[in-house]
């Protein structure tokens, strides 16, 4: 501790350089923390333990092809099945394109059972009203709060995929486990089916809840085997795999993010190494004076490394702080348009990774110039004016 003031004073030797280095480290760490958190958030969607018992059944050819609604009856009859729900992405727009939120046409009856992990609190009477009202809908609390909706509010949706623009009356508001679970609207599938002639008897996908997660592989195989030779063959997959398909539309985002992360880490290393090399080179004589006074090589190395690590840590903390602040802003802006980012937050593992990476950067970037400085003979250092 008695050397701390020495380290701090040395760090502030060139305030502008130190400040610029901390800023550049901060921006880089912010970038890494944000990118890693995006990756973590997206991965969370594709590796959601809550959806372990759910299967998405769709047309084998593509999502644009529909399945017969009657397929649901056969699937429902399987012993491993707890619930089946036709589910159709509607893609309706409320007032303006910027008001994007997820909206689905579903069978209202099994909705709360299918998504029991996500719809964590709701009113039974409200959901019964939803079942009874063909033009009714239920919305998440987050969505209701965003637009100031209440039970009874009429929500006009402009159809973008289907030639149909329903006016839906909110019959219930539920609370979700995560923010993204609350940014969604469900309305009656029958309403869509009755309003769009070519959707009669057809649906984009079935959402199936198995009685147990262990039943899922067997059920997937059985469903696809049953419809293998049908005119509309199915492709069944876990909900996680289904989500992953969507994420793949973003490209190989994981590789992209990891590549950028690696590039940024190398850039941080170079920036810090350059600063520390400059700082230590300027103090060649000073290092020699310290050693002449009796500081050992190890003590000098320790002081210089501590300085480098402290510099990196300050930059790292700044970047982490910025990332945490930005996460909230991102959730409220881009997160509204991209459902996967609605739960965006800087995960603890990411914070730890970023902090460790900056400390390692401080150590690595300082070690070589510091080692060279303390290895230099004292008399040589004293002459280096």
């Amino acid at each position, binding site marked *: 501790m*008695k*050397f701390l*003031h*020495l380290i701090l*004073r*040395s760090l*502030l*030797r060139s305030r502008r350089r130190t400040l610029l280095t901390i800023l550049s480290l901060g921006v880089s760490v912010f970038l890494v923390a944000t990118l890693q958190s995006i990756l973590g958030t997206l991965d969370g969607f594709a590796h959601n333990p809550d959806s372990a018992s759910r299967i998405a059944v769709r047309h084998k050819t593509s999502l644009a092809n529909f399945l017969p609604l009657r397929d649901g009856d056969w699937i429902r009859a399987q012993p491993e099945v707890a619930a089946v729900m036709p589910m159709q992405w509607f893609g309706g727009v409320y007032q303006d394109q910027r008001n994007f939120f997820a909206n689905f046409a579903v069978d209202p009856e099994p909705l709360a059972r299918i998504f029991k992990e996500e719809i964590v609190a709701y009113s039974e009477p409200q959901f019964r009203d939803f079942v009874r009202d063909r033009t009714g809908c239920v919305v998440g609390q987050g969505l209701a709060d965003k637009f100031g909706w209440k039970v009874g509010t009429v929500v006009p949706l402009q159809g973008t995929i289907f030639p149909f623009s329903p006016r839906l009356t909110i019959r219930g508001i539920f609370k979700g486990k995560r923010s993204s679970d609350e940014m969604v609207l469900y309305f009656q599938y029958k309403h869509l089916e009755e309003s769009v002639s070519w959707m009669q008897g057809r649906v984009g996908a079935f959402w199936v809840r198995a009685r147990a997660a262990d039943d899922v592989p067997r059920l997937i195989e059985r469903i696809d085997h049953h419809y293998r030779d049908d005119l509309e063959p199915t492709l069944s997959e876990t909900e996680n795999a289904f989500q992953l398909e969507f994420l793949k539309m973003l490209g190989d985002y994981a590789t992209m993010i990891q590549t950028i992360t690696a590039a940024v880490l190398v850039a941080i290393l170079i920036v810090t190494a350059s600063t520390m090399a400059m700082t230590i080179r300027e103090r060649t*004589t*000073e290092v020699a*004076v*310290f*050693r*002449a*006074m*009796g*500081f*050992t*090589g*190890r*003590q000098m190395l320790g002081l210089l490394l501590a300085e480098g690590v402290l510099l990196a840590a300050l930059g790292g903390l700044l970047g982490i702080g910025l990332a945490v602040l930005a996460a909230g802003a991102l959730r409220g802006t881009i997160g509204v348009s991209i459902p996967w980012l609605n739960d965006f937050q800087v995960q603890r593992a990411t914070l730890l990774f970023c902090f460790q990476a900056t400390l390692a950067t401080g150590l690595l970037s300082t070690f070589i110039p510091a080692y060279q400085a303390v290895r230099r*003979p*004292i*008399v040589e250092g*004293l002459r280096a*004016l």
Partner: protein
Amino acid sequence: MPPIITCRAIAKSYFRGSLEVPVLQGLDLEIPQGGYYALMGPSGSGKTTLLNLIAGIDRPTGGSLEVCGHALNDLDDDDLAAWRAQHVGFIFQNYNLVPVLNAYENVELPLLLGSLGRRQRRERVMEVLGMVNLLDRLHNYPRQLSGGQEQRVAIARAIAGDPDLLVADEPTGALDAANAEEVMALLERLNQDLGKTILLVTHDPKAAHHARVQIHLEKGVLDRTVERNAP
């Protein structure tokens, strides 16, 4: 007085590529405890090299050195550093104060290596800054001090750890005549009042005149020794 410094056949060579450049060639020297010696000689005569060897910041290529009761040849780098911290105070031509530390903190620096507590360190720093008459400059940074004041802070730093031996390499080389005289008088007081052994390298005959013995080197060997008559 028993010798505090004993050099036996000290040799030191530097290498420029494969070329060996001998600087000191088998030099014998004894300096008694409490002595005040000036090393003189033309550039390249080996006086700074000898000073560095005696101060333990360089190692001889031949011969043996015993300083303050320790055979320096036998000490490894860490032991030599600990030995320097305990026995040697350095005074440099360019003062070499740490620019980001104030006068107080510069003087405290060598004390950080010891086991003194904060309050004891403070007492010691105040004591030595009092000796060099700089108690009114405690919080001044080197850039806020004159050359003479800087060198006095450097002297305070050198004596803070109460070393037996003070080595000074051209301590007045960067000072005007008045400040140089003041610094030399201060060194003389440290020698006479505190009994510090002082070994200084200088080109300046006036500075050398303060020493009780002048050792003249020539091409790496002892040329002559001149003792100052008692005042």
